[in-house]
């Protein structure tokens, strides 16, 4: 058991959240409110872009891949930038993005495509969603982490320059003893 895996989980309480068994009504309220917002957004997209039986379900595909990209971005921000905001992850991560994305519609879309006599669409959708979702969550987390490190590096360079009493000139080569 590696503790880093569970401490970074979407659903599990982090160090700033109350222990299991503690009063968690604020968390549950945040999850419910976020779940309603995310689900209404998903419903709206399905109504706007319905897909016929046996055709590739683009609406669900887009919803799930977008939600996976955003959870990757969010979890890095929650861990490294927005630290200590107790209700942020329950609201945005568990609620909004958990309610926005869906596994049950994905599974049913596959069943419907097979029933409609389109097994190739079903297989393409099954694999396509999985691959795109995994690439999206990895890209979201990776790019956000890289952006945070780049910003911090610039901040550190500026601070060091200020402490030495010289202006930060990133592109000018300085000579002489340090």
């Amino acid at each position, binding site marked *: *058991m*590696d503790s*880093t*895996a*569970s401490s*970074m*989980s*979407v*659903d*599990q309480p982090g160090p700033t959240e109350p222990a*299991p068994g503690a009063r968690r009504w604020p*968390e*549950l309220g945040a*999850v*419910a*409110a*976020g*779940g*309603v917002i*995310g*689900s*209404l957004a*998903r*419903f709206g997209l*399905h109504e706007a872009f319905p897909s016929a039986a046996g055709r590739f379900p683009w609406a669900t595909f887009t919803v*799930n891949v977008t*939600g*996976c990209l*955003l*959870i990757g971005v969010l*979890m890095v921000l929650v861990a490294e930038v927005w630290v200590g905001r107790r209700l942020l992850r*329950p609201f945005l991560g*568990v*609620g909004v*993005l*958990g*309610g*926005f*994305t*869906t*596994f*049950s*519609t*994905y*599974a*049913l879309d*596959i*069943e*419907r495509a*097979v*029933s409609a006599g389109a097994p190739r669409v079903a297989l393409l959708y*099954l694999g396509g*969603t*999985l691959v795109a*979702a*995994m690439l*999206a*969550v*990895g890209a979201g*987390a990776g790019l956000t982490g890289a952006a945070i490190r780049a910003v911090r590096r610039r901040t550190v360079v500026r601070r060091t320059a200020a402490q030495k009493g010289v202006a930060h000139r990133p592109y000018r080569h300085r000579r002489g003893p340090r």
Partner: protein
Amino acid sequence: MMAALLVALGAAVGAPLRYLTDQAIRARHDSVFPWGTMTVNVTGSLLLGFLVGLPANDAILLLAGTGFCGALTSYSTFSYETLRLVQIRAWPVAAASVLANLVAGIGAAFAGVALAQAIVG
């Protein structure tokens, strides 16, 4: 408007139930395998399959299908937990989780439809 209200009501129950299920399972199992997510994904897919297989009327499908099952299950949690397992190089667990969610979740959707059709006849 009525449709949106039904979806919202179902989601207001489904999303917190996913959260509580995950916490309850984590409190009992000390394992990196994401049992909580798999449990809600399989249960939600079975129920949605059943509702679509009947088929249930539009109001029930919006409330219990799009709202409740849609919010109970999650693709983002599933993908993020898989990413975490890959990051800690728990490759076999990551692969097992993906395979289990796909086989059991999609299988549950087929089983739900078949079950409903067997009952309705």
